[in-house]
């Protein structure tokens, strides 16, 4: 069984490789390469897999999942410029792929109960673009 919790944060970023020319950056990242950055209302969905506890009837306490999302993702990233203010994006480009992978890393550290494992992170950069990170072996 799966349980999904959603959270939102608004942040700015820019996707640009300093080693490339303006034209090359444009081809790679599109308008996301604008050197002054731009912003999104990110929506993150975190899915946990497990079986409901026979006593509580819950896979995990949703309040706890909400709290972890708040501490690990929303509080550090909301209303921030990711490249300048949120590690590791001072060193790696905050593409949707890399931000989703970082959400996965942060959430997995906190979800160590084998009965409620992180299954999927889905990150919407806009309503028309999202990236999913899935556990290896997860189905289609």
């Amino acid at each position: 069984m799966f349980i999904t919790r959603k959270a939102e944060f608004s942040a700015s970023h820019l996707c640009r490789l300093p080693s490339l020319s303006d034209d090359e950056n444009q081809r790679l990242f599109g308008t996301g390469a604008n050197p002054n950055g731009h912003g999104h209302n990110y929506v993150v969905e975190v899915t946990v897999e497990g079986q409901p506890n026979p006593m509580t009837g819950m896979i995990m306490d949703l309040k706890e999942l909400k709290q972890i999302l708040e501490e690990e993702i929303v509080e550090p990233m909301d209303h921030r410029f990711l490249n300048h203010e949120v590690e590791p994006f001072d060193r790696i480009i905050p593409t949707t792929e890399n931000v989703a992978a970082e959400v996965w890393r942060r959430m997995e550290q906190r979800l160590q109960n084998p009965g409620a494992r992180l299954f999927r992170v889905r990150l919407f950069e806009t309503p028309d673009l999202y990236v999913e990170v899935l556990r290896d072996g997860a189905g289609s």
Partner: protein
Amino acid sequence: MRTRITRLYRFSASHRLHTARLSEDENIRLYGKCNNPFGHGHNYVLEVTAEGPVDPESGLVLRVPELDNLVRDRVLRSFEDRNINLDVPQFRQLVPTTENIAKVISDLLHEHWGIYVSGVSRLVRVHVQETDRNGFEIWVRPEAASVDIQSEREKVAV
């Protein structure tokens, strides 16, 4: 850990569900209002999903502008503001159900993927939403053209 990227596109088009292999009455019974002789339209939403490794330097599975060019040139130009039965050649003999639309789009994207999209990502999924109550998706297997069609007709609106 695997990474997939999904991009959404929209197009508006009209169609009529009708097959010459059935009588007029049988067509009406099978397709109901969708068999209206003058056709009708939808605002379709197309989702295209690719999977692949994240390039360590660029942080990308694929270059979104390349995918946008592929979908614009090979899909949206054919379907946007068209009568699918009359204007899209693949549907001269094929009923434009959303299942068939998803299959035709999946084939078009698969056929032209390597011309537009650099790198090693591959097309894994095409989802076509006819209304916010109807969605149809195709999963493209790694070995290429074989596909699974999943119908989600009448699913609860998102």
